[in-house]
């Protein structure tokens, strides 16, 4: 239990520190590297909660796929001279105030409602014992959620075709 607590705080520091660095760095490459740190912290949080399949998906897809895509685009559009410009827009003060208000609301709700989250005792009868996380995900994904799964694959096909159409000079 103590190990879980310590690991949670380590991963939380990774996630939040990486996120803050992501939105404050001047160079887009540095932002991307910080985002990788943040995403790895999120993957650690998944592992901490016995979501092993999502841990693997997070590493392979986010850190391995999306971030490489980001890095490619950063190199492609050559942001070196853009890094010398002003980094924050003119509305940053209003944005910070609005975000602080939303944060105060969320914090207040979490503070007032923290007793309602003691759900450990009222847990519904669990999943069949002996099944690993990947088996459970597969059983649910390919029976109950088969139609959303197929729709998601069509969405990905549309996204692939769309991004090629937009990034290509002449079709």
């Amino acid at each position, binding site marked *: 239990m103590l190990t879980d607590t*310590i690991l*949670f705080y380590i991963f*939380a520091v990774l*996630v*939040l520190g990486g*996120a803050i660095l*992501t*939105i404050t760095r001047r160079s*887009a490459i540095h932002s*991307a590297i910080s*985002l990788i740190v*943040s*995403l790895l912290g*999120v993957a650690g949080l998944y592992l901490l*909660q*016995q*979501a092993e*399949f*999502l841990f693997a*998906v*997070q590493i392979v897809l*986010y850190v391995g*796929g*999306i971030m490489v895509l*980001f890095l490619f685009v950063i190199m*492609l*559009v050559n*942001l070196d001279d*853009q890094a010398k*410009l002003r*980094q*924050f*827009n*003119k*509305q*940053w003060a209003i*944005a910070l105030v*609005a*975000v602080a208000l*939303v944060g105060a609301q*969320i914090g207040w709700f*979490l503070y007032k409602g923290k007793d309602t989250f*003691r*759900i450990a005792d009222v*847990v*519904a009868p669990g999943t069949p014992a002996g099944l690993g996380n990947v088996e*459970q995900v597969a*059983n*649910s*994904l390919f029976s109950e959620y088969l139609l959303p799964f197929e729709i*998601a694959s069509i*969405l*990905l096909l*549309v*996204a692939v075709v*769309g*991004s090629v159409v*937009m*990034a290509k*000079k002449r079709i």
Partner: protein
Amino acid sequence: MHPITPVHYLALSAALLLIGTVGVLTRRNIVIILMSIELILNAVNINLIAFSHALQNINGQIFAIFVITDAVAEAAVGLGILIALFRNKETVQADEIDLLKW
């Protein structure tokens, strides 16, 4: 030290969401705005996994998979748009792209 409860995860996820929102609202570089959107989607996923673990219910993880799918599609299309935009306007600063303003 207190054991970790879902409230801890919710607070972490809210903080990540707010950081991502600040990034979207204040940065000028479109690439970093897209990265902030990834941060926001990750905050959603942390919430889903926290409740999936607390309730011992696998459906939260399924929804997290769909969120990741959407994040991938969004990143691919967004970066495609960004390349097309850079080819036409030679800028990636969000507030310099004001063709629709009068």
